[in-house]
């Protein structure tokens, strides 16, 4: 199953930042890595990924640099900045809170605590 629309609700940025936390990547590589890691559940469209990457760069959350792919072509790699790392932390914690809340509802509305 490939999910695209569900991702557009706001978590795409978190997934992109998470991938870039591991290593610097170029756009096509991000699409392939995300698809691989999610068993093809998340395959980003070009029109979704690149405007997000450019927006992140405008906000200084990532920085880009060029590296030669071959003699005639350069690839733009993206690197996560410390500001980007902080945003990722916040997005992850928001996501965990959201996920736990959904789980609690699905499990019958019972609260639980780990002791």
């Amino acid at each position: 199953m490939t999910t695209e629309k569900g991702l557009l609700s706001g978590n795409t940025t978190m997934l992109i930042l998470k991938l870039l936390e591991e290593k610097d990547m170029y756009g096509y590589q991000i699409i392939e890595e995300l698809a691989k890691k999610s068993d093809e559940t998340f395959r980003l469209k070009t029109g979704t990924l690149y405007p997000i990457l450019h927006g992140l760069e405008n906000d200084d959350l990532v920085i880009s640099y060029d590296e030669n792919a071959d003699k005639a072509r350069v690839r733009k790699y993206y690197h996560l900045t410390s500001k980007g790392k902080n945003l990722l932390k916040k997005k992850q914690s928001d996501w965990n809170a959201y996920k736990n809340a959904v789980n609690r509802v699905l499990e019958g509305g019972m609260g639980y605590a780990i002791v």
Partner: protein
Amino acid sequence: MQSSDKISAYVGQICEQIRWKKARLRVEEEMISHVIDQRNAFIEQGLDEEVATEKAIADSGDATLIGTQFDRTHRPKPQWSMLAPVMSLLLIGLIIQLFIFDYGDIFAKHKLTSTAIGIIFMLAAYYFDFTLFSKYPKTIYFTVIAISFATLRLSPIVNGKSYYSQYFILLFPLVFAAIIFATRNKGYLGIILCDLAFLFQAFITIEIRSYTGFFLFSIVSLVLLSSAISKNWFNVNKLYGYLLMLAPFVFFAVFLLMNMSEFMLARSEVFYPSYAPYGIGHWGGLTIEKLLNYANLFGIGRMAEQYDGILGASYFQTDLILTAITVRLGWITTMGIIGLFLFFIIKGFIRVFKQKSGLGLFVSLSIMLTFSLQVVIYVLFNLGFQILSPLSLPFVSYGNLATITNMGLIGFMLSVFRTGDVVKDEKICNKNRKFLSWQDSKLTIDFKGR
């Protein structure tokens, strides 16, 4: 159609949707690379090139839709938060000069006219494509030098200085930044060329007899060259680069010590004015101190009435407006004005160091430093530390050429902040481009530069 043509046509369609043309360059190369990566992956899976290209384009998505998404992301950044303090300072300058101190109708008319022309210059520079500056560095450099020489010959001499030429010095750091940009990757030769450009300009500032201008230009040049070397702009060993950079500065330091020691000794009297009450330091140490001692926190100072004659002198309007404001309106007003300058300077430097291109960095850094040093020299002078004569307190003090030049410079810097994000040094270097060219009996002026 060949596969590379198909990819170019597809990416071209994407770029057409982006209204901000400058941003298209940033998108174009990356999208072509993306489709080629996708096509190569299909070829590896066993498809032939033509089918792989078509599938890669289809997989990338609808060009118009993608272009529209990019169009939403790439917009010039309006600089309202930087324009607001500039406009406030202009307004303060106008109110103070027109209503608080009565310097006469002619001065009021001049102040209004120069402010109006300055606003036109600032807005024109704000919407100007600053990358054009990088395409004709030599033309710009020698034009400014030629104008400086012309004014040097034509301008009246006031207080020993070539009066109008001294304000052209405000443009010197910016044109020096153009030379730094033009010498990218030229190795040690690049630094030597920058040194020569510096020496040439520094000699003109000495010829103009503006030691403030010389000091300001030297400091800004030193910072610009240092930042270029630290960014590996010339592609040289950094230590040797710094040493080569320092050569002309050391030369001038020795030159000044040998020729100007008497002048500098006299100027140093500002530090012990009571020892030399009739020396150059007299004004700085005694009169300003006396005036400021009587200033209140709010409102008119206790001795202001006796000093009204002095405060109304044109000397205060140009060089001591802050002292006059402090005595007449109190320290709080002065602190408010200095606060506005600080706000602008801090915000400005934060944006300078966010510049992604060398061109954006050098242009904005040169203007920000020129602006800040003028403010620092002016404020120190008005507090009694009169080591260097001030050029102007940008936007506030009286001075037609200074107002227009400073506003034009600030507009140009804001143009960098507005559009600098999409500028790449590699893309704008075009060595063979000529601003003016003559061919087939036709004179061509290339404003577009592309």
